[in-house]
């Protein structure tokens, strides 16, 4: 969900080990990294960037419990209050028979809830365009991007030096 245009400077790395060492250098130099983009998930990136553990699974648990309660209470209400019927000699409240549907609704609620939450939190979704900083990121290159809005030229030069010192194969500025 991009509200305004933004000037960035980014560098591309050929290898994820180069990327990680570059991030360590940036952290040591107290450079404020805007984003890191990789073609595949890189292990150990989250702690380097100081990202907290995702809370999505907490949401998944909550949605799952919601599904469990919906199924169990729904069926309980239907079979005991709304429309009690006799099936195969079972009592009006056959808890064992509820197990499959309760499980299914738990999984359904958890999965769909987590997907929707993920999209909302990350500003993703149908109709939203996300800029591709460089086509190679979707192929085999690793990218570190800095926000250059409000930075003086000397500071941007410092970032450019940082990229050159850490072995970036390409350094560019861009407005996204």
């Amino acid at each position: 969900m991009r509200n305004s245009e933004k000037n960035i400077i980014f560098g591309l790395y050929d290898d994820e080990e180069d990327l990680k060492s570059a991030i360590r250098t940036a952290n040591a130099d107290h450079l404020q990294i805007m984003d890191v983009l990789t073609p595949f998930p890189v292990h150990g990136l989250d702690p380097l960037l100081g990202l907290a553990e995702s809370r999505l699974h907490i949401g998944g648990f909550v949605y799952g419990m919601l599904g469990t309660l919906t199924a169990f209470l729904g069926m309980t209400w239907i079979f005991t209050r709304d429309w009690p019927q006799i099936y195969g000699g079972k009592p009006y409240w056959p808890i064992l028979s509820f197990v499959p549907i309760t499980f299914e609704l738990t999984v359904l609620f958890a999965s769909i809830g987590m997907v929707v939450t993920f999209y909302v939190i990350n500003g993703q979704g149908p109709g939203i365009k996300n800029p591709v900083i460089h086509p190679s990121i979707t192929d085999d290159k690793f990218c570190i991007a800095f926000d250059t809005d409000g930075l003086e030229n000397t500071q941007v030069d410092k970032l450019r030096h940082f990229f050159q010192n850490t072995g970036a194969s390409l350094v560019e500025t861009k407005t996204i």
Partner: protein
Amino acid sequence: MKTDADGLVQYYATGVTVSGKQGEEDYFSCVQYHHTMGVTGQDSLTKETINADEAATVYMTYGLVRQGFQGSLVNRTIIRKSHLDHVEDFVKDLQEERHHHQELNKKQIYPGHDETYARGHHWGMHVDLNACIGCGACTVACMAENNVPVVGKREMSRHHEMAWLRIDRYFYGDVNNPSAVYQPLMCQHCNNAPCENVCPVNATNHSSEGLNQMAYNRCVGTRYCANNCPYKVRRFNWLDYNAADLWPINEPDLGLKSGSDDVPYGADNLTRMVLNPDVTVRSRGVIEKCSFCVQRIQEGKLRAKTEQRLLRDADVKTACQTACPTGAITFGDMNNEEGELTKKLASPLNYIVLEEVNTRSAVNYQARVINKAEGVDA
């Protein structure tokens, strides 16, 4: 019609000959082994002991005639029979067996609905295998009463028979001169009905009066229930036998004119007059089965209500019961202490088909007791 000197009709003929059909070949549909249970027989070709029903399914297809299988009473038969000479031992064994089954059946997860059925009516049936002569009048009466389609030879040979009540026959004794036991088998209206559990659309459930009910409009034809029925009494409408899809309410724009050749059999108003208006006509893709003549039960209950009295045995009689010439079938309220059914249910010869699977069926069969001297034919 031939009459004798007194003008009485004689139901026999002498000196008849076959003409016209001589030298021609035709196929017959042998349905005797359809749905029979626990019957093994010797394959006429391989001489191996095989499941007769399975073999009938495989071999008795239309256009491929194989020799039928002579079934016999086997260990897992659903027929109970005894000779009069040792009937006391037989009753003792039968009671012991039933007691064993009932003890095992107590070990079920759910408590059941015995309290529900103890109130009001609990419909049940008693079939006396001694009285049954296998004439088939009950089947015919059932088909007439319940609008059961007559499907014809080709459908029969494909296991598509629709009879709600079938008569199984089981042979015993000398293979060249066997004796037979006939067993009318209809929906047993089990209290623990296996068919009800598997319906994904709630098309079959149990009434508080112990009836296993069908909601034809709900049925989507998965046939899980027929698959799960241990008695194999559920019938599936493979085709639109009653031309139900051509009823004006279903297809208003067909423009069919009564009596013209365009109208399929069963779709014109005159043919439809054979249908019983009290019973729904089932269309294609729907499971149907014995309803214990629920329309007659309702009629009897309403009659008793308008006359402001308790329901009597005479108020409700199923079609098969009224048709049976020997009175082998008794239908009634199992909660009616004075009813005829309750008296018959007290017989120690009674047994329940497949009692060991804990279906708790509502149909009791009275074991066959034969009283035939040694070496006497028929």
